[in-house]
């Protein structure tokens, strides 16, 4: 059982809506990440954080934003959702460079 939680698991919303995807971990990890994954495709890093008040954009350009006010919480926000944002969003955390990721179960977002 992963100690990293994502909500909601599934979300269908209309174009133009503002949404926040939640990600929380109980392991005290400093490093947290957001990946975007389309079916049958690789995972693309869109945001990451090394700790509180630290956020960076990833390798894939994204219109989303993130915040890291608390160690355990790393939410991702889309100010105005579009159909091109339809994808699966995976949150992960890591204890350090000598460890792998722990992943959440993902949020599958559909924008109609």
């Amino acid at each position, binding site marked *: 059982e*992963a100690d990293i939680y994502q909500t909601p698991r599934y979300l269908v919303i209309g174009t133009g809506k503002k949404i926040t995807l939640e990600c929380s971990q109980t392991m005290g990890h400093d*490093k947290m*990440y957001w*990946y975007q994954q389309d079916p*049958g*495709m*690789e*995972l693309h*890093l869109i945001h*990451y954080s*090394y700790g509180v008040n630290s956020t960076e954009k*990833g*390798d894939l350009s994204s219109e989303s934003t993130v915040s890291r006010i608390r160690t355990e919480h790393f939410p991702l926000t889309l100010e105005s959702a579009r159909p091109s944002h339809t994808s699966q969003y*995976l949150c*992960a955390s*890591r204890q*350090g*460079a*000598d460890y*792998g*990721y*722990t*992943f*959440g*179960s*993902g949020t599958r977002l559909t924008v109609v």
Partner: protein
Amino acid sequence: AQSVSQHNHHVILSEAASLELGCNYSYGGTVNLFWYVQYPGQHLQLLLKYFSGDPLVKGIKGFEAEFIKSKFSFNLRKPSVQWSDTAEYFCAVNVPSSASKIIFGSGTRLSIRP
């Protein structure tokens, strides 16, 4: 920039067949290597990892992988697959640094015929 290639997009095997999934990475220096598995409807889980030492790494559920530095490869193997091994398998690489980001391959979908 480092990248990961998984050449097999979809592999179909019968139960008890042997499995080898290819993974190649592009980076000339020290790397950490991972295999992740995603069972249908479940989150990604770490199958095994290589950081240093013995290049033959054993993971969970009878999987193993061999790091061959000269070939920039980290192939995943299992001597005898089971129907429950049906899943998506992702190879990943990380260059040890302050960035601490893991780069993933495109994944290989494994289907096992009962």
